[in-house]
């Protein structure tokens, strides 16, 4: 008797399960399987082809970590502002652009005078200082004019204001300095590469990676081990409660935008010294990717922004050769953004709060 009932129950369960499977489930699982097939099949195919030696793979990784470090630095600014204000600061990539532009005038001046060649470290540091001052000032002006009036407004107004600030900065710099691409000077290293374990690594790339790690470490210490950091965390937890406890919310917001501006200023100059071009629209793409990196790592989370940025950069750089060469896709580099954003989607499907989770999500839940 029981033997006859059990299959009926199982059949009911199976039917129920099948009934519950929606089109979206099928699409998501198909996407996961497709991505896995491309990743595994492509990787095996590429390794069998042996087109790239270890030197090329090291190059791909270094290039990926370098651009990823820049994404990470910009992402740190996004993530800090989001953590405190729950605002996606779409103008942040353009704030990076303003710093890079300011640095351009200093760097080209030093290049013409020969100071950049004779004292590259000092010249870079001064360039960076000017960039940081300009980008921080503009970040604070944007906060005061475009964001503060909307601080207590719910809905889309703050977001629209952020997008407007982004366009305003782009078009202002276009009007002031023209729409042409401007060339950053080359750094005149005696030897531009450093030999690490037999591989040549560009010194500038190491500077960028090092700067990103230091920036993240400093931010982490500031947020977690200082009085202002405690205030930032309190405001991001609950603005009203923090204000009732005597925390000056305005001061915390200004400090957060200052940190974001500093990060953007440093990132702008490093970006320009690596990729050697500045123009009014240069902040848009890295800004979008850095925002993706912040989401990937878990927006509001400082180490998450860093890891998200580096993952995104690595996938962009290594992905096309590793995944697509092996399955015979021609010109794979035009698909680098597809790889980066597929990664983003895949991570968010499995972990909607990003790799590290939104910093306050757990506590709030």
């Amino acid at each position: 008797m029981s033997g006859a009932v059990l299959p009926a129950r199982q059949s009911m369960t199976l039917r129920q399960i099948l009934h519950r499977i929606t089109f979206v489930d099928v699409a998501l699982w198909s996407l996961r399987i497709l991505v896995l097939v491309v990743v595994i099949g492509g990787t095996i195919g590429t390794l069998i082809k042996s087109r790239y030696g270890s030197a090329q793979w090291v190059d791909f990784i270094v290039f990926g970590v370098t651009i990823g470090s820049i994404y990470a630095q910009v992402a740190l600014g996004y993530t800090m502002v989001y953590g405190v204000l729950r605002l996606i600061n779409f103008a942040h990539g353009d704030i990076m652009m303003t710093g890079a532009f300011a640095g351009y005038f200093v760097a080209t001046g030093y290049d013409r005078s020969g100071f950049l060649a004779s004292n590259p470290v000092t010249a870079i540091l001064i360039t960076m200082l000017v960039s940081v001052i300009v980008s921080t000032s503009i970040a604070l002006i944007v906060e005061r004019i475009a964001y503060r009036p909307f601080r207590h407004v719910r809905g889309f107004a703050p977001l629209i204001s952020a997008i407007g600030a982004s366009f305003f900065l782009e078009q202002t710099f276009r009007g002031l300095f023209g729409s042409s691409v401007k060339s950053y000077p080359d750094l005149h290293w005696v030897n531009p590469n450093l030999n690490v374990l037999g591989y040549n690594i560009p010194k500038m790339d190491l500077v960028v990676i090092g700067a990103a790690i230091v920036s993240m470490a400093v931010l982490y210490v500031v947020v977690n081990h200082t009085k202002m950091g405690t205030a930032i965390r309190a405001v991001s937890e609950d603005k009203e409660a923090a204000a009732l406890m005597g925390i000056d919310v305005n001061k915390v917001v200004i400090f957060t935008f200052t940190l974001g501006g500093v990060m953007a200023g440093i990132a702008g100059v490093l970006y320009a010294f690596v990729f050697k071009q500045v123009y009014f629209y240069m902040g848009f793409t890295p800004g979008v990717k850095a925002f993706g990196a912040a989401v990937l790592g878990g927006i509001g989370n400082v180490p998450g922004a860093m890891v998200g940025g580096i993952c995104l950069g690595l996938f962009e750089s290594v992905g096309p050769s590793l995944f697509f060469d092996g399955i015979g896709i021609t010109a794979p580099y035009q698909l680098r953004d597809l790889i980066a954003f597929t990664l983003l989607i895949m991570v968010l499907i499995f972990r909607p709060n990003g790799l590290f989770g939104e910093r306050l999500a757990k506590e709030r839940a």
Partner: protein
Amino acid sequence: MPIALAAPSMAAQTLGGVTDEIGVIRVPKGAPITIGGYWVISGPDTALGTDSMRGAKVAFADHGNKIAGHPINFVVEDDQCNAEGGQTAATKLASNPAIVIVLGPACSSAATPAAPILWQAGIADIGTASSAPSLTAPDRKPGYDGFLRTIPSDLGQGKADANWLYNKLGARSVVAVHDGSPYAQQLAAVMAKNFQELGGKVLSTEAVAPTDVDMHPVLTRIATEKPDAVYMPIFVAAAAQMLRQSKEVPGLEKTTFIGGGSLMAPEFIQAAGPSIVGFRIAYPDVSPSAMGKTYPKMVEEYKKMFGEAPISGYHGNAYDAAVIAINAIEKVAKTGPDGATYIGKKALRDAAFASKFDGVSGPIACGEHGDCATFHPAVYEFTSSDPSTFKIGTNPKQIYP
């Protein structure tokens, strides 16, 4: 010779005694005749479009800024050298009922969506630097029936580039790089086909995005193939990144990089910096000996009007495009009983396609599919990284023929 055309969405019309299959434009007595234009006049490729626009303005000035007794009203839109910009510019121009004919663009990316929009409104469009073969191919879609151009098709440019790479440079292997634009993609394909026919090997065709900044990975990939040459007819920002970063990627030290006509601009020098010295671009021969007899005079007028030497190489083509427009309008314009001028749209298109004269860019003779120009190949080499030294013939200097 008139050919059977796909009719635009306009009906036959009779106005002021003029009957036309697709409509008639009335220009009141004393009112201006409106000519449209669309080029890239912002962003890194500004010089391409601004130079063309100036060429057209010189032509109008040479005709006393009047056509058929009417002053000229020149309405120019920015197409940003991309499809979205071209579509927007063409939509704006097509919605202006006063537009008689349109000049431009410089970029095939813009012309590809724009030309059918204009022709749908019965407006003929004369391209000045948009050279993608598909725009005037014999099997082009009916939407392009109103498009003609004073720049040669890249079928000639691609063949000449392959020939120069193989026979003059001595390259036996090449990697082609495009940015997905109709111009770059089609030119790279034509060059690759001809290079293979000559006996050379095309190792791969790579693609980058016009907005890409990190070219290191794609250059590392190219370096594994050890090509003799990299052929990259892409635009200013991406080409400058490729060139600068190529110096930092091991394995490319002996590889020659060669660009296309989109890089003939001071902006490219500014963007590429010191790495530009020695870089070569394949381009139509715009030396005075290869151009029309009146070219030197046109250049002098250009300098007088704009206070500087030409900032790119397509001003002559645009001048000739404007002359086609002026001559065609004067040929078909009729004065009605009310003193107004009436212009048949189809008649104007046919008159433009029947153009034949000695232009400033060389002989102009339009074929049934809209190719009007004669192609003379050349190769130029940049000699200085100072943008203020830009002058075609000096920096870059002509090294072939």
